[in-house]
């Protein structure tokens, strides 16, 4: 298993690079090529139609990115469709290029109480000798939710300011989780903190991005002791090391487990299943709409 685990982290998703599956898909697309099972002649037809429609859905999204609009944060570029990489790709979508872009930094006014919180936070940070620009990378307001991207060296200071100032008072630290963006060079691992203010009835998210090569973030447990197990879980699943954590051991996986299972380069596992003579590959090796 460890060989699979140590796959190149900069590659695409696991399902995207499965050449064996690509051949299967290509073979299936040739109608009536001696495939066992009655619905064989129907399936390739619908699959091709499906591919056309999937491609059509792509076009407005890719075109829209070029137009004037909110700045987007590109985290990955994907090529092709269904994981087909070689000449066997008869889907016609082998040349498709799709950028994966997360909502980018927002412009003021952020709306609602967001401006107030950001202003007060800047003020409190300045009082403590931390310039706002040094601590907060960017502010993202998306779908009515506020996300502050914090530089890792200041995450504890920001947490303390958010918890202790009476006008901020995010006293409930609800947890930490991780997200892995293997194609986002230098910012592969993100830790996401969920904070809640019972006093003011507000919620916000902190996000800290660190490179895979140096996955260290200061632990937020001195400010939010309840983040203890959450940081252990994030370490367990993503390999983000929270410096200063009182006991950063694995929590869900066994102690001697190699690898961090929630990373994108870590396989889902599973075995092919045989049913009436046909082999169904495990879910992470199936044809997928990447």
């Amino acid at each position: 298993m460890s060989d699979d685990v140590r796959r190149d982290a900069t590659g695409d998703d696991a399902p995207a690079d499965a050449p064996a599956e690509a051949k299967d898909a290509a073979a299936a697309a040739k109608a009536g090529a001696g495939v066992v099972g009655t619905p064989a002649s129907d399936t390739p037809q619908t699959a091709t139609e499906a591919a056309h429609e999937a491609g059509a859905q792509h076009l407005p999204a890719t075109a829209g990115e070029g137009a004037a609009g909110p700045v987007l944060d590109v985290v990955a570029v994907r090529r092709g469709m269904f994981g087909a990489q070689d000449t066997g790709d008869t889907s016609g979508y082998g040349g498709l290029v799709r950028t994966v872009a997360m909502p980018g930094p927002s412009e003021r006014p952020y709306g609602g109480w967001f401006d107030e919180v950001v202003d007060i936070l800047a003020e409190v940070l300045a009082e403590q000798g931390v310039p706002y620009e040094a601590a907060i990378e960017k502010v993202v307001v998306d779908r009515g939710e506020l996300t502050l991207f914090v530089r890792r060296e200041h995450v504890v200071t920001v947490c303390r300011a958010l918890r202790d100032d009476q006008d901020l008072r995010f006293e409930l630290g609800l947890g930490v989780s991780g997200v892995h963006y293997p194609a986002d060079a230098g910012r592969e691992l993100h830790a996401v903190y969920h904070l809640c203010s019972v006093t003011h009835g507000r919620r916000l998210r902190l996000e800290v991005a660190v490179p895979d090569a140096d996955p260290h973030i200061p632990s937020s447990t001195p400010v939010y002791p309840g983040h203890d197990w959450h940081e252990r879980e994030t370490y367990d699943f993503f390999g983000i090391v929270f410096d200063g954590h009182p006991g950063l051991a694995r929590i869900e996986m066994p102690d001697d487990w190699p690898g961090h299972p929630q990373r994108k380069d870590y396989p889902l596992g599973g075995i092919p299943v045989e049913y009436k003579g046909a082999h169904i590959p495990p879910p992470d090796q199936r044809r997928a709409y990447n």
Partner: protein
Amino acid sequence: MSEQTPHASAHIVDEGAEGVPTFEATGGDWSQIAEEAARLGEERIVVNMGPQHPSTHGVLRLMLEIDGETVTEARCGVGYLHTGIEKQMEYRTWTQGVTLCTRMDYLAPFFQEVGHCLAVEKLLGITDDVPERATVIRVLLMELNRVASHLVALATGGNELGATTIMTTGFTGREEILKIFELITGLRMNHGFIRPGGVAQDIPPGALDTIRETLPRVRDYIGQLSDLMLGNPIFKGRLVDVGYLGLAGCMALGITGPMLRATGLPYDVRKHTPYCGYETYDFDVPTATEADSYARVVLRIEECHQSLRIVEQALDRLQAMGPGPVMVADKKIAWPAQLAIGSDGMGNSLDHIREIMGTSMEALIHHFKLVTEGFRVPAGQATQAIEHPRGEMLVHLVSDGGTRPYRAHFRDPSFNNLQAVSLMCEGGLLADVVVAVAGIDPVMGGVDR
């Protein structure tokens, strides 16, 4: 902490963790603890309780260091039920994710389903398009589920103390609610009934009356439980002032739900950040100030009554609005198939099969596309907070613009609340550990996911 603890020892971890202080609490560490205890030759007894123990509320492992009958150190070992549901969800469509997340906290499946669907709807930007009827059905199911979950909490809590009658009464009461679930969803648990955009189908004819007839029986069981528990001197002797965790401790550890409300803070997500129209329902948030295990029992019983209040209001609304759509009108998101009962059970309706197979090629393509590929969700992330029976549950979904979640994370309240075991048990008696853990009411399926 790790430096001072005698049995914190280096263990096999990958190179990324080199130089990081580690504190082993699971797996092969047990032999080392035992060896070290023998070597130190102290009068120190380390008791391993669980993971297969009838009083640990599931596959929870407790490592207790005891001095006589007093617990001097208590630690939890979790992970025995870890099945990688969050990882699995990354390989299934947004709709299929419901089927997976419902299995997390198996005693409160509807809360994961609704949380997931609300987060998907937030990502899609269709929160306001979900039909009112679907939202009311969601509220109805969630509140019935809260009662069922609290009944199990009380029942197993009693069972762990040796009070079998409390167990049988609680489970019989829950059975009444499971019958309602079976009537509406076809299943007693792991329903997969809530779908992004609405619910799988409307409630069957006559279900409203059946629920109305059932509610007095559920109330009766809750009444029997309160009679059995609240006035019982033995029960009070075991629970009063046991497992104390005050407001400061709860806030520091991020503990929510009945445990936090037992300290006097009326924090309830349904009032704090309303979802599913909870702000339009008339209900109270019961609180207590004792912050002990007994107060938590009283609170859970009171919360059952409040939930039944909401259920009645939801029933009235469903009755008043009459039949209507229970799925968003957008055909690019709504599940294409209509369900019907056939001779071999429930499945796609014959009318629908006839249409897609016989008359409309486009309908067939649409069905195929939506069912196999699923719908695309614009890139971004969303967090949905839900008041789960055990506290605040967060569903954090990240989309990369594809047909499957890029990342799905469930902040399960049981997982967080179990951190309180050390605070609640250390310094207390060994027998009180069972009472304290029952007061937390962890469900290991949710803890380990």
